[in-house]
Structure formats: structure tokens, C-alpha cells
């Protein structure tokens, strides 16, 4: 398969993942959305040197992945392009913040190193949690949930249309690269002399298509608001899940569980 076709099918695989069934899949989208938002919020709020406290937050994505039956490696594979960017965020901290924070044997570990690791982990954890949400909930259900918490229609519709437009764009790239390759055999990639017209054509074609798609929506009664799939009312299990997860997150945020257990194990005081 072509690289671009591969990208398209990878994007669509997200829909396939969301169509699987597992206890996490069957949870109410609003419950998942709220839990994810709170998780991200609390994870990000950890102090930049609080590595031991942050580590515990890994539990949620790990448990969620194993219960949903989606391998963690799928997440890392699909996010392979964003992950390095997220990890690069704190890369310069060790150079700016050289005050030693702790010693491992004779080696001093500076504040910068700890804050770099903390930042990276925060990014990775948040990505994992978002991935779990997107991989176990259809885009429609997420949008419906967003509308339920009164996110303006404009923003939600924009989100959904952008998501759909990406597939249209990838489709067009795929058609154009195939057509190009078939008439330029033996050539690797697209010759730089054709880049300009290729990009221009891509933009025009995908815009034309988007416009026609939009007409087709209007002709079928679309007036700016999608009729999202009915989200069934939340069940007891959804409430329990949300309350339990949010409670656990707060507990992890307020109490440094790792050092709590550490001090118990070492017999020391808190």
C-alpha cells in the first residue's frame, strides 16, 4: 500500500477501534469525556519536580488500555509523530536549571533533569488518556457529549467537519499521487518541479469537493447543526465510573501515594 493510503487507512482505523466492544467502549461518552478532561487537568497541575507523585497517574491509562482490549503499542504507534514533539518540550530544562535536587549514589540529579522528565511524562500521559477516549468513542458520540456540556455548536461542528475534511484531503492526495506515479514510473516521490502545481491542485480539488459535499448536506436539510446519534441516558455504572475515577485522580493529586507507600515500607514517618 502507498504511504498516503496507509495514512488514510490508519485514520479510519480509529473509527474501527471505536466500534469494538468492551466495558470502556460501552461507558457513557460524557462520563469518559469528563474523566479524560479532569485527568488531563490534574496531570498537568502536578508540580514540575513532583515526579514521584506524577508516576501514579500512569495507572489510569494502563488500566483503561487493558480493560478496553486496545494494545498500548497501538497508541504509541499511531502517535509516533506527535510523541517526539511532546517529549521535546522540556529538552532544554537540564541546561537552564542546574541546581542539584537529589543524589543517586554519587551522581547528582539536577532540578532540570527532573522537570524535563516530569514534563515529558505529563505529555505522554495526557496523550495516552486522550487516545483512550478517541479510540473507544466514535467522533459523533464525542461531539454529542461536547454538546451535552454546552460547548457551542459552532465549535463542535467545526471539530466534526475538520475531522471529516482530513479524510477528504487525504483521499485527494491519494488519488493525485497515484495518478502522478502511474505516469512517472521509476520516479521516487513527486519531483520538486511539480510540487507547486501539485499543492495548488490539491487545495483547489479538496476545496471543490468540500464545497460540493457541503451543498449536498444543505440539500438534505442541514442548517448548521448535526443531529448526533442519541446518547442514551447515563446508567448507574457510568456515574460510578465517573465518581470513582475522579475521586481516585484527586486522591493521587493530593496525596503522594508513591512516597506514602515508600515511607510505610521503610518504616519511617510521613
Amino acid at each position: 500500500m502507498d504511504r498516503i493510503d496507509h495514512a488514510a487507512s490508519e485514520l479510519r482505523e480509529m473509527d474501527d477501534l471505536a466500534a469494538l466492544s468492551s466495558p470502556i467502549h460501552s461507558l457513557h461518552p460524557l462520563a469518559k469525556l469528563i474523566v479524560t478532561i479532569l485527568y488531563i487537568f490534574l496531570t498537568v497541575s502536578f508540580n514540575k519536580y513532583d515526579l514521584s507523585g506524577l508516576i501514579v497517574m500512569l495507572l489510569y491509562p494502563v488500566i483503561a488500555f487493558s480493560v478496553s482490549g486496545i494494545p498500548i503499542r497501538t497508541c504509541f504507534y499511531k502517535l509516533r509523530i506527535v510523541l517526539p514533539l511532546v517529549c521535546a518540550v522540556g529538552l532544554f530544562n537540564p541546561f537552564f536549571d542546574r541546581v542539584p535536587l537529589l543524589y543517586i549514589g554519587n551522581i547528582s540529579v539536577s532540578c532540570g533533569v527532573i522537570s524535563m522528565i516530569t514534563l515529558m511524562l505529563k505529555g505522554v500521559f495526557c496523550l495516552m488518556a486522550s487516545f483512550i477516549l478517541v479510540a473507544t468513542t466514535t467522533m459523533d458520540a464525542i461531539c454529542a457529549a461536547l454538546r451535552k456540556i454546552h460547548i457551542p455548536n459552532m465549535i463542535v461542528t467545526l471539530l466534526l467537519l475538520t475531522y471529516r475534511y482530513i479524510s477528504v484531503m487525504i483521499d485527494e492526495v491519494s488519488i493525485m499521487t497515484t495518478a502522478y506515479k502511474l505516469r512517472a514510473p521509476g520516479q521516487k516521490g513527486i519531483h520538486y518541479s511539480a510540487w507547486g502545481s501539485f499543492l495548488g491542485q490539491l487545495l483547489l480539488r479538496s476545496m471543490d469537493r468540500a464545497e460540493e459535499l457541503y451543498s449536498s448536506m444543505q440539500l438534505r436539510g442541514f442548517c448548521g447543526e448535526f443531529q448526533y446519534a442519541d446518547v442514551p441516558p447515563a446508567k448507574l455504572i457510568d456515574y460510578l465510573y465517573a465518581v470513582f475515577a475522579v475521586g481516585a485522580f484527586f486522591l493521587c493529586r493530593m496525596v503522594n501515594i508513591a512516597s506514602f507507600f515508600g515511607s510505610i515500607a521503610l518504616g519511617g514517618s510521613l
Partner: protein
Amino acid sequence: MIRFEHVSCEYEKGQTVLNDLSFEIQNSDSVGLIGANGAGKSTLMKVLLGLLPYQGLITVDDLEVNKQNIKEIRRKLGFVLQNSDNQMFMPTVYEDVMFAPLNYGMSREKAEKRTDAVLAQLGLSDLKHRHNHKISGGEKRMAAIATVLAMEPDVLLMDEPTSALDPYNRRIVINTINALPNTKIITSHDLDMILDTCQKVILLSEGRIAAQGNAKEILINRELLEANRMELPLCFSQKY
């Protein structure tokens, strides 16, 4: 009733695509819109749907096609696009077919029933939960037709409904069209299909009406057709 009075249209200044068209289509008429490539058939449909600006007057049930009336007019018209890729935008066939009924305020339960009925009518029940990007060109064509039938429009506009269809599906579409009491405007290069489904024909040539009238009379007129870059329908030609 649909009425065109001296309608002209151009995409770019000076490049007239429709040139002074006047005709009337009565309720429950089936009209075939034929003509060579680039004659202006798709443009005519788009103008009627209010998708392109025009000069002259177009009315649908005495409502002028303009910004004020467009919502009401579009509720009456169902349009099958020439390119089905541009018609389908929901993830699955089922959701796409259900899109219009839901938008027009039908309850989800009723919309589901309607969707199931239309898919069954076109023999598409197996495609129900398939992803739009994972079906063949012809299947997509059939699904696109289903999306419009589900709207239950008063007037059915179909831009080459049978292109890309195998003979079996083509026959299903013809039978479906014939079973509908609605007003129908059908564009096609498949003249045998036009003959099967339409009582009247409008022949377009370079944006003008070259002929209009009884379908059989026009479609058997070899000179007229050949003068406009067309041929006799296969059933009338003596080749085989």
C-alpha cells in the same frame, strides 16, 4: 410545477453556460435531460437547486428560486449528484441515508424505519453498516440514490443515476424510478434508460434547448440526435 423563464447562467463572465432557457415541467412529469458532455445539464440542475446564481426566473410551485425561498424549495427537491463521492459524507451508509430524515425533524425511530425501508427497496440491506469509503463505485451510486429517496422529496433530480451501475442494479433503479409518483428530472447519457423512465425529453446543446417534447419522438429522430453529438438509443439502432 417547475418553470424556467429566459434563464441564463455563467460561471465566469462572458462564458455563458445556460443561454435563455424557457420550459415548464408539470407535477408528476418524468423529464429526461439529455445532451452532449458540457451541454449544461448538471448546471441546469444546480441552478434549479439555488446552488448557482442565474438571470431570468425560475419557480418551483410558484415560489421563485431565491435566497428567501431556498429553504422551502430545497425541502421539495431531492438531488442525486453526478459524483457520488461528493454526496456521501457520513462514516457509514446507514448514517448517510438517515441524515436527511433526521434533519427534517423525523424521530430517530421513524428515521431508522425509513432508512431500512429505502435500503431494502434498493437491495442494499447488506451495505447498511459498511463504511462509505469501503464500498465500490456502483454501490456508492446506489447508496447515494438511497440517501435522496429517504428524503421523500416532491421532485427527484438525478444526475446520471445509472452511471457505474451493473445491469441488475440499473434495472432496480429504473424500476424504482418508475414506481415513484413524484416529478422527476433525470439526466443521463443512457438513452435507453431515459426512454424507459421518461415521457418527455429536453435536449440541450451548448446551453440552449435544441428540442423538447415527447421522449419517443425525440429519441427516434436520428438526424436531430446526431446533429447534437448524440446517437439513437441502442433499442432503436439497427446495428445488431
